[in-house]
C-alpha cells in the first residue's frame, strides 16, 4: 500500500511546506484553533456541568427515597391528576417506621420560605424545613459542628435549629453561630449545629441554604396546612428496589388503597434527577456541538481552500514526483498529511487556549477538562484535516504527470 518511508517523506514534506508558508499556515491554523477551542470549551462545560450534577445529586444520598404528593418528573396530565391527591401527613412517618424492615429512618419534612435575621444581618427567603430528630439519619447529611435536635426537643417543638453552611456564613461571618439565637420569620431559635457544606448546583435543595427546626415548632409558628415530604433512608444492606416495594406497600396500607386502585403518592429518588438531567444534557450537548462545530467547519473550509492553493502551486513538483515514481496514493497521502498536520497543530493551539479559558469560565459555571476531552479534540482536529484535505489531495493524486510537468 504505502511504505513507511513514503509516510516519513510525506510528513517531512508537509513540515517543510508549512514552514515555507508561515503566514498562510498560521492563518489557516488560527481557523482550526478557534474551532477546536470552541468545541473543547463546549465539551469542558458539558463535562463540568455533568460532574457538578453528579456531585450534587450525591448530596441527596443515593439510598434516600422521598415520598411525596408529586413525582419529580411529571407530564401536564399527570400533574393535574396528582393535584387531587390527598396531602401527605406527618403521622405517616411513624407508621412507616413501625412497619418497615428494610428502611432505617423516616423523617417528615415541611417547607416554607422565611427571612432569617441575626443582629443587623438578614438572609432573605431562606428555606425553612420543619422536621423531626430522625432527619439527620434519614437524609444522610453530616454535621460540621454541634448536634442535631433530640427527640425531646423535636416532640416538644423547642425553639432550636440547625443551619446550613451558607446560612452560617451569611449571618455569622466572624462569630461562632453555635448557641446564638436567630430570628426566623419573627420567631427566635437557638442554633444547635451547622451542617457540612454540600456545594453543587442545587443550592436551594441542599442543606447549605436551609434552616432546620423541629416540626412541631414549625406547625405552631407557620401553620399546619402544608404538604409533607417523607424522607426515607433505605437500610445499608437492603436492596433499593426491594426497599422501594416495601415502602410502596406500606404507603398503600397507610393510604388505605384497595387492590385495584392506583397509587396516590409518588416515591422519588435522586436517580430520577440523573435521568431527567441526562436527557437535558443530550439536547444541550447536541445543540452546543452543532453551533461550535460550525466554527470548526468554517476552519475546515479554510484548510480545503489552502490545500487547493498548495496543490496548484506545487503542480510541477507533483509532476516531478510522479515522474520519478510516486504513485497516486503517495501523492494523496502527502497532501492529507499536510492538511492533517496543519489541523493538528491548530488543534493543539486551540486546546492550549481552551485550558486557561476553561479556568476562567469555571468562575461562572462548573467546567472540567479531562484527558479524554483533550484526546478527542486532537482526534477531531486531525479528522477535520483529513476530511477537508481529501478533495484537494485527490485532485493532486489524479494529476496527469505530463500536464503537471508542463505546468508553469
Amino acid at each position, binding site marked *: 500500500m504505502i511504505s513507511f*518511508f513514503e509516510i516519513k517523506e510525506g510528513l517531512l514534506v508537509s513540515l*517543510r511546506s508549512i514552514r515555507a508558508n508561515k503566514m498562510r499556515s498560521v492563518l489557516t491554523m488560527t481557523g482550526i484553533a478557534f474551532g477546536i477551542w470552541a468545541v473543547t470549551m463546549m465539551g469542558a462545560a458539558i463535562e463540568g456541568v455533568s460532574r457538578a450534577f453528579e456531585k450534587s445529586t450525591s448530596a441527596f444520598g443515593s439510598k434516600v427515597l422521598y415520598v411525596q404528593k408529586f413525582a419529580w418528573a411529571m407530564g401536564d396530565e399527570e400533574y393535574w391528576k396528582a393535584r387531587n391527591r390527598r396531602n401527605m401527613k406527618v403521622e405517616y412517618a411513624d407508621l412507616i417506621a413501625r412497619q418497615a424492615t428494610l428502611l432505617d429512618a423516616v423523617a417528615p419534612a415541611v417547607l416554607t420560605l422565611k427571612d432569617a435575621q441575626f443582629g443587623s444581618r438578614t438572609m432573605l427567603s431562606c428555606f425553612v424545613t420543619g422536621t423531626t430528630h430522625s432527619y439527620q439519619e434519614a437524609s444522610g447529611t453530616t454535621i460540621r459542628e454541634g448536634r442535631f435536635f433530640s427527640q425531646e426537643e423535636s416532640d416538644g417543638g423547642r425553639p432550636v435549629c440547625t443551619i446550613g453552611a451558607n446560612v452560617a456564613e451569611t449571618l455569622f461571618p466572624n462569630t461562632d453561630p453555635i448557641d446564638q439565637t436567630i430570628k426566623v420569620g419573627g420567631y427566635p431559635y437557638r442554633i444547635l449545629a451547622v451542617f457540612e457544606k454540600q456545594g453543587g448546583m442545587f443550592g436551594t435543595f441542599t442543606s447549605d441554604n436551609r434552616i432546620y427546626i423541629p416540626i412541631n415548632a414549625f406547625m405552631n409558628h407557620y401553620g399546619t396546612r402544608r404538604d409533607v415530604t417523607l424522607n426515607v433512608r433505605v437500610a445499608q444492606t437492603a436492596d433499593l428496589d426491594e426497599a422501594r416495594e416495601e415502602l410502596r406497600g406500606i404507603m398503600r396500607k397507610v393510604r388505605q388503597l384497595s387492590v385495584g386502585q392506583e397509587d396516590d403518592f409518588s416515591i422519588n429518588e435522586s436517580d430520577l434527577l440523573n435521568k431527567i438531567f441526562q436527557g437535558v444534557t443530550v439536547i444541550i450537548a447536541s445543540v452546543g456541538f452543532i453551533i461550535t462545530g460550525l466554527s470548526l467547519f468554517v476552519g475546515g473550509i479554510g484548510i480545503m481552500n489552502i490545500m487547493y492553493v498548495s496543490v496548484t502551486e506545487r503542480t510541477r513538483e507533483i509532476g516531478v514526483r510522479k515522474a520519478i515514481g510516486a*504513485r497516486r496514493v503517495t501523492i494523496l497521502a502527502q497532501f492529507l498529511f499536510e492538511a492533517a498536520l496543519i489541523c493538528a497543530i491548530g488543534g493543539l493551539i486551540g486546546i492550549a487556549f481552551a485550558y486557561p479559558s476553561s479556568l476562567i469560565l469555571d468562575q461562572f459555571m462548573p467546567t472540567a477538562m479531562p484527558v479524554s476531552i483533550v484526546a478527542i479534540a486532537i482526534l477531531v482536529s486531525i479528522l477535520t484535516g483529513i476530511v477537508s484535505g481529501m478533495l484537494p489531495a485527490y485532485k493532486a493524486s489524479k494529476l496527469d504527470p505530463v500536464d503537471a510537468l508542463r505546468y508553469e
Partner: protein
Amino acid sequence: MAENSIVIDLQQIVKTYDMGGAEEVHALRGVSVRICKNEYVAIMGPSGSGKSTLMNIIGCLDTPTSGRYEFNGINVSDMNDNDLAKVRNKEIGFVFQTFNLLARSDALHNVELPLIYAGIPSAERRRQANEALAHVGLAARVHHKPNELSGGQRQRVAVARALVNKPSILLADEPTGNLDTKTGEEIMALFEELHHQGNTIILVTHEESIAEHAHRIIRVRDGMVESDKVIKGEAVNAA
C-alpha cells in the same frame, strides 16, 4: 545482438488527443522504433512534430492510443497508473530541461527521492545517493540546496537522481536547454561518460549540436519517424 538486449520496442504507436467535439490531434501516427541496451539515441524534431509525445510514451508518463510498447520485453502499453509509476521509478531516469529539483530539499534528499518511492531503508538510501552524487562530481555539494548550486551543478544533481535507481534508460529532455554553452558541453561530456559506462541514453532535443553527441539520431516530423540514422560508433541496432 540478442533479442533480449532490446530495451525499448515501439510498434505502430499512435497517439491521438481528443480536443473536444470532433476535433482530434494526431500527435503520433504509427511510430515504430527499437532501442537496444547501451545505445545513445537523440530524438529530434521541430516543435509540434510529436517528439515530446514520443518522449512521454517512452518515459511511461503517457500511454499510446494504439500500438504496442514493450519495455524490456514487458508490455507497458496498457498498464495502469500504479504499475507505470513503478516502471518509471525502477527503470527510467528522467533529466529535465528545467532540472525540476525540489527547491526546499538539499541535493542528497533530491537524489534520495526515487529510492524513497522504491521503499529502500534510509541508511542504504543515503549510501546510494551519496555514491550517485560522487559519480557526477558533486561529493562536496551533497548538503547544498538547489538555489546554492550553479545551473550545471543542478543538472548534475538531476542526473544523479536519474541514475540512483540504476534504471534501464536515461531519458533527457533538452538537458542543456537552460545552460550556457560551456556548461552544456560539460553535461554532454558527462552523458558521454555515462554512455561509456554502459548506460542507455535517450536525448530529446531540437539542437543539432547537442544531437551530434548521440550515436544515432531519430528525426520525427508530423507524428512519424522521418529518418533513423546511426551516425557514429558501432551499429548496435543493425544486428
